[in-house]
């Protein structure tokens, strides 16, 4: 009857729609795209359309790095775009990588939400001629051309110890407020700090390492306990952004303010008030704008065939000067950036 007929018609219409959707895949479908249309030697020559894909949008850190990227792309006359998911999950990133593949962009600059989950999508993009640069968070090395590393462990350990040493006059007791006891990167840095202190500052002793579990309240309590149990303590290093902010909050309202030095890894927005009120003299991180800037120039160098990601390749990165690709296609941004009262006003992340 009519009901049945309508239903058949409905299914038929779906089939027609599906057929229409699939017509694109019957032919070779060169599409109406220009953009090098993925033919020839890796996406055509000098396709300087560069798409940034941060972990998520609306994150001040990545807003800053994308600004740096845009500055660089404008300098060398390419086309800049930034896309990304609202949530920092790998599955959400995959569809953006796929879209970039369809668009046949020149290069994709990605901060990976997962080292492996986005691998296949990135390799599909590379097969289609898109150059892939990772920055901030790497993927497995076989899924990208180069990785722009913001800082190496030695540099991170050194800059924190040097700062605390300078602030306490090169002698005395210091302690470390870390994230969690099994945080791989934290433990590696602390190990290097101990070695560096032992070799460079014989008069400084690291008396204790405590763990705030990257939780604000726990870190706050551990800071209080640390100062109770070590009356002679002269400095604290906290190589975690959560820890340094909590420790600064404790110190700023305590009698130890200005008496006990605090440094570590933090962000300007978290630490601004504590630098301004004198609780903290200086702390370190890296400059995300420089990271984005360098990533964009690395993408340009890949697109133009100046580098391939081989160890020893060199390329020019505008104002930042010349860089060399290290082992496994890693490019190191440089020494960590030290924030203090003089420069903190220039940053917003």
């Amino acid at each position, binding site marked *: 009857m*009519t009901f049945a007929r309508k239903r058949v018609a409905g299914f038929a219409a*779906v089939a027609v729609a599906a057929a229409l959707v699939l017509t694109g895949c019957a032919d070779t479908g060169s*599409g109406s795209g220009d953009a090098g249309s993925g033919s020839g030697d890796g996406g055509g020559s000098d396709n300087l359309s560069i798409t940034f894909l941060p972990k998520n949008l609306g994150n001040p850190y990545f807003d800053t790095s994308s600004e740096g990227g845009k500055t660089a792309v404008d300098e060398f006359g390419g086309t800049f775009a930034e896309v990304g998911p609202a949530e920092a*999950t*790998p599955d959400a990133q995959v569809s953006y990588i796929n*879209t970039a593949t369809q668009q046949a962009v020149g290069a994709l600059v990605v901060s990976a939400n*997962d080292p492996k*989950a986005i691998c*296949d999508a990135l390799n599909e993009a590379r097969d289609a001629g898109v150059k892939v640069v990772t920055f901030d968070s790497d993927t497995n090395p076989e899924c990208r051309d180069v990785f722009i590393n913001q800082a190496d462990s030695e540099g991170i350990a050194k800059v924190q110890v040097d700062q605390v040493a300078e602030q306490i006059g090169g002698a005395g007791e210091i302690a470390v407020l870390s994230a969690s006891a099994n945080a791989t990167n934290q433990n590696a840095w602390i190990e290097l700090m101990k070695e560096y202190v032992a070799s460079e500052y014989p008069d400084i002793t690291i008396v204790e390492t405590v763990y705030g579990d990257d939780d604000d309240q726990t870190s706050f309590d551990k800071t209080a306990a640390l100062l109770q149990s070590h009356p002679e303590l002269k400095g604290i290093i906290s190589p975690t952004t959560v820890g340094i902010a909590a420790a600064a909050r404790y110190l700023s309202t305590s009698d130890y303010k200005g008496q006990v030095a605090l440094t570590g890894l933090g962000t300007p927005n978290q630490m601004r008030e504590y630098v301004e009120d004198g609780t903290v003299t200086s702390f370190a991180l890296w400059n995300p704008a420089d990271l984005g800037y360098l990533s964009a120039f690395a993408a340009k160098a890949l697109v133009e065939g100046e580098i391939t990601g081989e160890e020893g390749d060199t390329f020019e990165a505008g104002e930042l000067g010349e860089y060399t690709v290290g082992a496994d296609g890693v490019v190191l941004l440089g020494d960590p950036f030290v924030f203090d009262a003089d420069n903190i006003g220039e940053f917003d992340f």
Partner: protein
Amino acid sequence: MTTTASTRVIRDYDRSLWRRIIVNREFAIIALLVLVVIVATVSIRGFAQPITVNYLLLDVAPILLIALPMTLVMITGEIDLSVGSMVGLASVVTGVLTEAGAPFEVAALAALTVGVVGGAFNGFLVTVVGLPSLAVTIGTLALFRGLAVGLLGTTAVTDFPETWTALAKAKIAGTTIPYIVIPFLILLAVFAVVLHFTPFGRGIYAIGLSKDAARFSGVDVERTKFILFVLSGVVAAFAGIFYTLRFGSARGDNATGLELQVIAAVVLGGVSVFGGRGHLHGVVAAVLLIGVLGSGLRLAGVTSDVINIITGGLLIFSVVAASVLAWAQRLRSKAGPPFRVAASPAP
């Protein structure tokens, strides 16, 4: 055709074709899908190429799969909000067992079992205890997600057999269509036959129209609903296994929010949230429509929040349009029996 819905059959045959298309939700969605595909093909650079089909279908596959049982659940007037969390839980179960050294097939089977158990739990609370499914599945949404995140913490399992991950993304020879389409089409056929050509399916419509009337005409309301919740759970688990393989990553937060995408597609596809009305072909077209819109707009450089606004606006518009049309219908057929207002052009 003697359906229990016969009291509400729209007398389609005395309307012109264009009126039928305007008034009928399914046709409207299918027409819109065709239109959007044509517009995107013509106007968006990079859309008209084979790989688009591959990415599009891989992206919407979990939603397509889960929308099938969800359509049936919603036609009975119930809802299952726990499907997104079940995808995550199945993903985590697959991952944890694989990591512990179980063969992948065993891990996948365990994940499907979890789907059955989770679905049965929902079904039990709704049918035996008699709680409203909205409340129950909001609860299990949190429960399943909590279990998923609790089992894996913030880590991810990424070590799956290459054969399986390759299969999840494999293309049917000579095309760019992914293999996942095959199980989907089989499930679609099964669900379509069950819904439209069996007493069980007629019972589903009957329950949505009037639970009491269905009961009087011999439909086992509780049993029907229970079975549908189990199906919903097990299909969500299957989608979870596919999801895990596609991204090669089992995570506790996988597919967060997927349930809303599924329900949006089901409602857009013409299923009434009051129950009693809806067809699978409309829902399938709606899922593809949302997928094509997303894919096309992303290619055109539109940001994800604007895409959400557009798909949300489309959904609201379609529901409002349907209600307005139904109201106009009732006005015109002055002597219409006093039906409960549903998003359908009642006589």
